[in-house]
């Protein structure tokens, strides 16, 4: 029985040893997730940089964005492999500090990405300014609904940095600059398409005068789109989304969604690996690398400078 159990293990092992290219520079990239298209686009960028700069990377992240402890285990295992540098997007930056201190004691440069780490340890952080981006979405919303009326927001998470920044970025900009607009509801759908759909439907039904809805990440935005479609409110509610993905792009093309904010996930992945590679060589890297954001709608979705940012 034991030999039988060992068999697959040995096979896996053989595969590994074969795939292990020896010796080059190794940089583990630890993200906040790996299943979502957004993280897959970050991975794409990281792999692109790895190829160009001739370094080896691995890319992993926990199954969902609440698993702080699982992410720490990944970081620990990554450190055990004695890498030359680490790219890390902290789910909870305070919890990660002891391990990051270990990294810095071992002279392993850490590069933060996405939301970064609240500490001096990272040599650089490649991220989107989410507050500014969501604020821009608020201005666009105001423009599209005639600067007056009721709007609502569907957010992916109450506790994560991106969730808080995008919610506050949007809500505060409305309050500060658009006094005739009221945000009547903010709800959280966990970034889950189905949950966000149900939630957005309930919001549309309890606030029949809604003129606009903002979905703060891919799952939330798809939820809003589905709700508007299912309740046949196309054209009556202005929908603004965040990030990309095939469904969201289709919604923009068909006019169901007025437009969306796009981060540059490929750029985030690329720039964090690039910064790590530079740090290994001892080159100086800027402390914050703003990877930027862009507004896309029907008019520019197929433009040459937009295309690379919009993952499927």
């Amino acid at each position, binding site marked *: *029985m*034991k030999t039988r*159990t*060992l068999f*697959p*293990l*040995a096979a*896996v*092992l053989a595969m*590994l*040893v074969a795939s*292990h290219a020896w010796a080059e520079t190794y940089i583990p990239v630890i993200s906040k997730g*790996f299943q979502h298209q957004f993280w897959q686009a970050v991975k794409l960028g990281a792999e692109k940089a790895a190829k160009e700069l001739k370094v080896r990377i*691995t*890319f*992993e*992240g926990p*199954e*969902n964005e*609440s*698993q*702080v*402890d699982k992410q*720490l*285990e*990944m970081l*620990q*295992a*990554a*450190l*055990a*492999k*004695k890498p030359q540098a680490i790219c890390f997007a902290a789910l*909870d930056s*305070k*919890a990660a500090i*002891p391990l990051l201190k*270990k990294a810095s004691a071992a002279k392993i440069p850490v590069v933060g990405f996405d939301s970064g780490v609240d500490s001096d340890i990272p040599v650089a952080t490649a991220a989107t300014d989410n507050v500014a981006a969501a604020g821009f979405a608020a201005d666009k919303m105001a423009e599209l609904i005639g600067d007056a009326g009721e709007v609502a927001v569907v957010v992916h*998470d*109450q*506790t994560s940095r991106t969730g*808080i920044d995008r919610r506050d970025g949007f809500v505060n900009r409305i309050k500060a600059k658009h006094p005739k607009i009221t945000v009547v509801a903010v709800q959280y759908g966990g970034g889950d398409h189905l949950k966000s759909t149900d939630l957005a439907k309930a919001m549309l039904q309890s606030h029949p005068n809604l003129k606009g809805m903002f979905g703060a990440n891919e799952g939330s935005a798809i939820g809003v789109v589905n709700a508007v479609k299912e309740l046949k409110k196309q054209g009556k509610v202005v929908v603004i989304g965040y990030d990309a993905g095939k469904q969201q792009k289709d919604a923009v093309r068909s006019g169901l969604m007025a437009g969306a904010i796009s981060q540059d996930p490929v750029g985030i992945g690329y720039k964090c690996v690039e910064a790590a590679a530079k740090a290994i060589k001892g080159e100086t890297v800027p402390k914050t690398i703003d990877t930027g954001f862009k507004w896309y709608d029907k008019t520019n979705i197929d433009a040459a400078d937009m295309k690379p940012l919009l993952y499927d």
Partner: protein
Amino acid sequence: MDQPTPLGDREPRTPRPARRGRGRGAPSAVQTLLAFGVLIAMVVVFSIASPNFLQFDNIVGILLATAVNGVLALGVTFVIIAGGIDLSIGTVMSLSAVMTGVVITNWQLPIPLGIVAGLATGAVAGMVNGFVIARLKLPPFIATLGMLKVANGLALITSGLRPIYFTDTPSFNEIAMGSIVAKLIPSLEIPNLVLFLFGAALIAGFALNRTILGRYTFALGSNEEATRLSGVPVVAWKIAVYAVCGLFAGLAGVLIAARLDSAQPSLGFGYELEAIAAAVIGGTSLSGGEGTILGTVIGAFLISILTNGLRILSVSQEWQIVVTGVIVVVAVYLDIVRRRTQEQA
């Protein structure tokens, strides 16, 4: 170690005997031994495959990764042996962590009070589970699924939807991440969290094998009706068993809060399945009446060694998930094979 599978004609299965002993007999021992064998084999394989696996820092990493899941698994072992299941342990853990945070950080009360609050939260949640199952006669699966949601919601409400940090009370973090061992043997920096796992395992082992609680836990899982007919107050003991499980979830909550230096309210989904897997891999029977604490501890280590080893070897994450799933199925299959052999013998 291998037991030859009889190839002869299948005999009609005899119904399982009402009393199955107390888990110290041959049946569970075989599964525990098997799990231990696989564990050793894994360590050997991973050590050969990567020089980074058998390093002190990585071993400490594995111990740390096992601690919280191990403590959860200890508690759920009781419930499973008693013929039940508890799906709420993950989110009850987070609720306990949040309560500890509320007491220590928000109310600025002494740390021991916070720990008591965390443990009590777990125990109360467990008692509610026990009451709903034993008195209101709800199936354990449904009752604890309800508690899973309730605890998750309450954790979000009481925390005000954000993590509660313990940064003002550095000694709280020390409880888990400090090292008493290092004070005695300076070079051996093993975090206290690990000691909590072994301490909790010893207590659980004692409770299961040497106390009346343990005896009734096995009795409930083997034959509840017979237990009731022999005059045991079944309702009260069932509530007690779930309370014990909740208490361990509370301890896990305090420990995870101390380790992360924060109480994370949205954490907890999926932890129940990992803990149940640890118990089952270690030989606890999902149909009740059988199981050992040692087996559960080995099961928990098996899972975290596997996860860590695959990470060290840079196996892509998608495959890590597949392998972990296969291991659980194989473990349960071995359990079924063993049982069949035994019944035919």
